[in-house]
């Protein structure tokens, strides 16, 4: 305790504890956005509560304008509720671990089907799967365009494109 006074040490001591907690609170603040798992899984359609809060959402939602598909949603099967944002690159569906959407579905093949963009639309194509791919109850024999909201069935999994 030669040149450093007790007061300085006390200030530094509390200052350090404060700094520790500042770090923790900034980290928590930084991950605040990420904690909303439910928000991301929700579909693009606003919920009833959101519509009640701002009425203009309700009018905007059922617009008949042809929309671009922005995400892929699993509506049935073991992965129900999973969404994948659609970029400009093809998506491989299947049980293989290298697939983009790994289906944990015993009725799907390893590399079951492929979803790829062409122009402004998305096409689905069967990759020679054992049990086949169905676009709106019709078995695929060649690549066909997938419209928004039309169910695509792979094994016991059903996927849909959403705006």
């Amino acid at each position, binding site marked *: 305790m030669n040149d450093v006074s007790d007061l300085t040490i006390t200030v530094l001591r509390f200052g*350090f504890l404060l700094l520790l907690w500042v770090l923790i609170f900034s980290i928590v603040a930084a991950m605040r956005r990420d904690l909303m798992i439910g928000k991301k899984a929700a579909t693009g359609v606003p919920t009833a509560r959101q519509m009640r809060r701002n009425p203009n959402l309700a009018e905007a939602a059922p617009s008949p304008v042809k929309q671009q598909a922005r995400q892929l949603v699993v509506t049935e099967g073991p992965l129900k509720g999973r969404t994948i944002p659609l970029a400009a690159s093809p998506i491989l569906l299947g049980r293989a671990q290298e697939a983009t959407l790994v289906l944990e579905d015993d009725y799907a093949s390893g590399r079951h089907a492929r979803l790829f963009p062409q122009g402004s639309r998305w096409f689905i194509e069967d990759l020679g799967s054992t049990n086949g791919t169905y676009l709106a109850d019709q078995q695929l024999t060649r690549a066909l365009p997938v419209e928004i909201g039309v169910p695509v069935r792979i094994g016991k999994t059903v996927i849909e494109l959403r705006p």
Partner: protein
Amino acid sequence: MTQTDGAPKPRRNIELLLLLLALAVGISANALVGVDQEKAFDTDFWFQSSLLAVAALGFHVVLRIRAKYADPVILPLVVALNGLGLAMIHRLDGPDDDTGNNQLRWTLIAMAVAIAVIWFLKDHRVLRRFTYISLAVSALLLVLPLIPGISAGEILGARVWIRLGPLTFQPGEIAKITLAIFFAGYLSSNRDLILLAGRKIGPLQFPRFKDMGPMITAWLVSIGVLIFQRDLGSSVLFFGLFIVMIYVATSRISWVVIGVGLLLGGGFVASNVFSHVGLRINGWLNAFTDEVYGRTFGGSYQIVEGLFGMASGGLVGTGLGQGRPNMVPFANSDMIIASFGEELGLFGLFAIVMMFLLLFTRGFRAALGTRDAFGKLLACGLSFAIALQCFVVIGGVTRLIPLTGLTTPFLAAGGSSLLANWIIVGLLLMISHAARGPVDTTPLPPGTETDNRQAVPAIPGQPMSPAPRRNPQIRTDTQTEAVRQL
């Protein structure tokens, strides 16, 4: 709260900001420990601080290049914890001890290895190909300390070290990573078999032995070897890892019930059969009796001194460098939590526990976000390993459970533990990169098929070869079982 943009953001700038804050914590801790001992701003301090800062920022730059979408919170948390550990070890060093610099050397090595993992592995799914190799590697690593030539002999009652030239190393620390890789790889391909095939006894369903065989042998080997090495803490860690990964894979609560039952039963048997376990438990239950406190071997002196230290720290602590945590044996390794409790008080200790908690939740967040079963299981297993280690150590120091020899991740002095935990961080960062990034479409670049195992033409409109089944025998088997179940 109406952000509907699904586009992933790298958020590396936030990481840089938090990283600078974390470095401020670590470096100011290092400055504070010597503030009244004339070693506050000596050359050692500047040397250590600048090396830590350069290494951390280097890591950040590597993330910017190689894993742009990795979780922005993990690296700052780990750097803050590591910096706090360095400062405390430096503070506890006697006049001619060199543990602090040694720890810094290991920190730099560990960070370099973690960077190498991120740089060369690129995709964690590659590890799945090494499922059985990693089982063999785990067995080898666990047996190494028992082999006469390499073994460093019995140090502090346990045979877990090996000697490599001037260094001693604890291979069991690395084995926890390879075992996690094996469990994740095995469970991700055989999950359905374990779930569906097998007979029911009462409310519980037991899988067939054939499906569980590799898991059981892996478990028996690790536990058996650890019994011979007298390493209680690692046995608990491996057992917990095994139970948690199988629970996460199958979501059957019966595994947890069986596991906890076995743990209690095994603990009871071990406390009666092995004298060192019995002494530990006695030292935990009757810590404050004269006879146990003063016992030369297996007494409660260490725990009780640690508790006294934390009590003298109180709510806000004595201040870094102001307390006397070096009264406790192993104050810089096993009991480092008690040292922090004394000098930072309850507020500081809670901050540290909070950091571990946040790290653990980020690991699980990566597991939730990633799309492949292997990555999910691996991230769960690795982050759980860190959490369980914290629980066992902090619980032991605060006398919630018997004290066992496990290291506090990132804080305690010890190179092998630091190296293993940094590798875990590297893997978690990579998994979180895959989880948070835009959908990875590398498997199907048209024309350039990099995955040479299954060459399927990827041009639309052309006839496709049938998708080959990865393991036809197992698959047909599952399907019949599944059909029977339905």
